[in-house]
């Protein structure tokens, strides 16, 4: 019954954390796989760490009391934000060490931590009960798939011609498209989510979907033995598409929960009479 209002407190900086953190953790996961497969992984690992750190820095710029940022670690028992921070504490040194030493084991450990970090990001949104569009269960796989699609896409910059990595990026991109399609379908079925759904239906949303489709096309072309640069371009576009979707999700689709009254107040009662009585 109340008009839903768009949340105004998490802006592009928060969206930047979900974008950079998601892509970074996806990149680290991909790098971990690459390390096991003997492919290049040190620079991607480092890049992934920098992306995560960059995302967190954006959040640091957004919070009201940045000099108290360490308080973020105080509530691991229930807060997915604390857990995200703790996993960042784990993933960053592991990734940096992996990049520095080139040890595949460290890369694997970093990849596992990064997967956890990505999971935390998905759960952060899932726990935001004030924003029904984020509360939607279908968002969790969408966020996970997005991180992987973006990270595997960016990895193509390091290994543009590797067919297995092209295949991974293409598969992750397809999974992401499916997961986001499923998420947006779920929004369509959720009562009162019209405004959130409309945020994805606008020009920006259509652009993000077009970028997704285009990136998938480029990746498929690259896979069909087209020039390697196409793969890298497709990967970057996959990451950009994800950035667009997440920015929309945070800054445009975050509408509050409407108040629905289970009953109306009864203000004065009594039956009706007839003049003739």
């Amino acid at each position, binding site marked *: 019954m109340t008009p839903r209002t768009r949340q105004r407190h998490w802006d592009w900086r928060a969206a930047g954390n979900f974008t950079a953190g998601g892509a970074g953790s996806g990149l680290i996961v991909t790098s971990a796989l690459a390390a096991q497969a003997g492919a290049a992984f040190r620079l991607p690992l480092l890049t992934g760490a920098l992306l995560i750190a960059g995302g967190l820095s954006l959040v640091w710029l957004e*919070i009201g009391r940045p000099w*108290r940022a360490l*308080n973020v670690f105080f509530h691991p028992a229930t807060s997915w*934000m604390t857990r995200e921070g703790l996993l960042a504490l784990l993933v960053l040194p592991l990734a940096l060490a992996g990049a520095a030493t080139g040890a595949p084991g460290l890369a694997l450990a970093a990849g596992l931590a990064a997967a956890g970090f990505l999971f935390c990001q998905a759960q952060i949104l899932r726990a935001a009960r*004030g924003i029904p569009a984020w509360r939607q269960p279908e968002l969790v796989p969408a966020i996970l798939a997005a991180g992987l699609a973006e990270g595997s896409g960016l990895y193509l910059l390091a290994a543009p011609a590797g067919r297995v990595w092209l295949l991974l990026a293409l598969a992750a991109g397809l999974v992401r498209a499916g997961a986001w399609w499923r998420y947006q379908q779920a929004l369509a079925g959720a009562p009162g989510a019209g405004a959130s759904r409309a945020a994805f239906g606008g020009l920006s949303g259509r652009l993000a979907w077009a970028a997704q489709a285009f990136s998938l096309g480029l990746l498929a072309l690259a896979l069909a033995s087209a020039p390697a640069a196409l793969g890298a371009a497709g990967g970057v576009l996959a990451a950009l598409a994800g950035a667009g979707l997440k920015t929309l999700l945070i800054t445009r689709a975050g509408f509050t929960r409407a*108040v629905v009254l289970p009953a109306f*107040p009864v203000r004065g009662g009594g039956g009706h009479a007839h003049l003739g009585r």
Partner: protein
Amino acid sequence: MTRYVMVADLRRCVGCQTCTAACKEGNNTPPGVQWRRVLDLESGTYPEVRRVFLPTGCQHCDHPPCLEVCPSTATRQRADGIVTIDEDLCIGCGYCLMACPYEARALTAAPAFAFGATPTAAEAARRPVGIGVASKCDFCVGRIDAGRARGLTPGRDPEATPLCVNSCISGALRFGDLDDPHGPVAALLAEHQWFRLHEDQRTGPGFYYLWDAAPP
């Protein structure tokens, strides 16, 4: 046990905003921050239309989603059900604002005052609240604690009762200990039909809305 709750009689509320003004002034909240708000709701289609005024604010939930997400433990829950924010711990991440299904929390980036950049004498005389940190209704916990220390009963003695309740001109807002079988709140809930908001979220709100007398 003690469980403090708010009761709003929707038959009485006329949307006058007195509670909102009393809260703002008493708590020195910055412009735009309203811990106690009264929503002006309409439903139906002309000419069959209903308009309802709904006092709202922090519901002091049994299971506060804000507390669950708070990374700093600034948000806490007391044994008497009151959910508080430790301004010295809060990092102002805004996560609790996203978690609250009741839009009860606020966060103001920079100091702001009624007439612009310079505080009035009244504003300057007191600590600004909620600047760079989350803020919300705390049921005037300071009044409750100070009152109880003097042997007063919150909800019955004005000095131990939230300012919004004291100010309410229609008698819509009432406050008290849910677990006190002889207190005003227990009687109100027994004698009326009531609901709470967003029961589907299983938050267990400590804010009850009366809408009719109990069936005989």
